[in-house]
């Protein structure tokens, strides 16, 4: 069986304007791939289109997850099939507590008629919150409501840890984080690294990759991958700037 998230010649438009222009990328399980690129290169569009956001129209190409046609699945089906997107701007859901939100997400993964074991669920959630140094009070608070930028990002990682996806896309999870929060978030991600899980880390800055060391780095520009390399590429990029790859 194909054990990767495979994107082949993907074309995506928003309101008739093409944003992703033939992107090909293969993320095997067990690897962490980073995508870097300047603003407007299409990084976040890629993240959202993989998750299934309805504002984005796929006009060409294929995406498969472990051989299964990802684009044929509904948004919630993709999640249950093992895809996870950590949002760049996580939404606030007034009146829905974090605990109930996570519980509903876990419940959705159980066969019909089967109820979640509440005691085990809370025990697991608390353990993972401890790992992310999150205060217990966040379980009873409305999802992301009144959370600081860093708290929202930690909450995204908590969701990832609770849902244990096969493939996780982290969309600029480092933005808005101070160095302590960055370290905590990165530790959470690193603890999740496994031969059965692939990561796509989207970032604007090389800094994150000091903490989450990638197997491969891709540079995205104008809707395409224009360069791929090992982790050293990120350092080189940091040093020489995006104009260097654009010129190449």
């Amino acid at each position: 069986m194909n054990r990767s998230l495979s994107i082949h010649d993907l074309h995506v438009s928003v309101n008739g304007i093409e944003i992703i222009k033939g992107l090909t990328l293969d993320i095997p399980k067990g690897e962490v791939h980073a995508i870097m690129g300047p603003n407007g290169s299409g990084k976040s569009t890629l993240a959202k289109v993989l998750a299934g956001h309805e504002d984005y129209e796929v006009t060409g190409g294929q995406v498969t997850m472990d051989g299964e046609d990802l684009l044929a699945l509904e948004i919630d089906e993709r999640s249950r099939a093992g895809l996870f997107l950590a949002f760049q701007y996580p939404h606030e859901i007034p009146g829905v507590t974090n605990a109930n939100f996570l519980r509903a997400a876990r419940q959705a993964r159980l066969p019909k008629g089967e109820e979640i074991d509440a005691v085990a669920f809370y025990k697991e959630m608390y353990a993972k919150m401890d790992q992310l140094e999150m205060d217990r009070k966040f379980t009873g608070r409305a999802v992301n409501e009144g959370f600081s930028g860093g708290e929202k990002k930690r909450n995204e990682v908590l969701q990832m840890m609770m849902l244990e996806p096969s493939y996780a896309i982290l969309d600029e999870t480092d933005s808005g984080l101070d160095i302590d929060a960055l370290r905590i978030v990165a530790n959470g991600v690193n603890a999740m690294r496994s031969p059965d899980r692939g990561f796509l880390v989207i970032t604007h800055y090389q800094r994150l990759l000091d903490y989450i060391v990638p197997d491969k780095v891709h540079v995205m520009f104008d809707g395409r991958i224009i360069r791929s390399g090992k982790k050293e590429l990120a350092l080189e990029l940091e040093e020489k700037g995006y104009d260097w790859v654009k010129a190449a």
Partner: protein
Amino acid sequence: MPNATLSMESPTQAAPPSGRDWFSAPPRHEEPADLPGWYRDLRAESWHQFLETPGPVRTDESWRFASLKQVQFDTLRMAEAVADPEPVIDNTLDRGLRLVAARFVFVNNRLALGESFALPNGVICLPIGEALVQHGDLVREHFMQEGARLGGAKFAALHGAATLSGLFIHVPKGVVIEDPIEVSHWAGGDGAVIFPHLLVVAERGASVSVVERHRSINTTDATLSIGMADLAPEDGGRIQYVCVQNLNDQSRQIQLNGTRVGRDAKALSCFVNLGGRWVRNESVSRLTGPGADSEMLSANLADGDQEYDQRTLQLHEAQHTKSDLLYKNALYDRSRTIFAGLIRVCPGAHFTDAYQKCRNLLGSDEAEANSMPGLEIDADQVKCSHGSTSGQISEEEIFYLKARGIPPRRARQMISQGFLAETIERLEGVELREAIGHRFEERFAVLA
């Protein structure tokens, strides 16, 4: 706006029904023989008023947008005694709160169960009939003092003329009742009417929470409840009142609340509407002493052809008073809601803080939410705001939940329930908040 269709109704309508079309004699049933004289007089006067007072008409501002056909009743009759109330009592206990200071169950206007658990000394908590006999003067001081200013005068008069069910609760100075007092009213029998009453007095430093539940004995009978609740937190007192209406989808309810908040006293009143065919809530908060504070809340879930018609008045009569109103409706199918609220700051009521917010979440294109917020200010140094909003569930919120694997229908339910939860979270009592949350969950689970 779908409202436009309303104005097309003919202004010449049938004459409003006279009281005699509904009842040929005051609606009564067996009651204590030694009721006090003042009360008998008051009832006679109420009956007279009921006959004299015209029924609701379209031209009356307080019935604007209202479905008047819902109050054009055929012959009404007093609810009859139920032969075996045990199954109803069992159901009440199964679904009621576990931790209560007292629990009373009325079935078709008659006491079916009354039990108290360690009520502090000096507290009076009695069915209204018994209280009239045993504590007539105390009852008289507060009984139906607030009248009905928001359109329901005819119904208030009928209520005043009828045999009442419900409770008189009097909490003396400094006594705090920790757990809520729960009162359940059950109604059954097609065309049957009940008259639930509640009168709560909290003296200085006293505190009490009362939960009133309204339910139907079966799913088919169209019943009518004409209820009144008067809350009197006196100087430094504190009262929470939550009215949870979950009647069958044939039944109607008219619930009139009057609250008088004294110096440094606090009232919190909340309507939760889940069931019923048509519901009219009228709620008046009078802030009569400096430091008085009234919180007025409502959380309503309407679907099918349900209609909730809510009218409120925040009446600031003294300086340095505060009121805060938040009414929330989640609407589905062809349901309708009406919110008409007025903040009135009386001359001299300087330094008033008054807030009023009605928010509607529209879950269908056919649902109709009408909001009429209002302000009248006759004082200085006043902080007031009012407003109403109507909107649909945000697609981005839905996307976020779906991206976590939550199916679309469940995602909508959770967001709608969260929307309503914002009011429920302001209630005191963990068990109460959870119980109401569960009721909403049950209702959302069966929504299409």
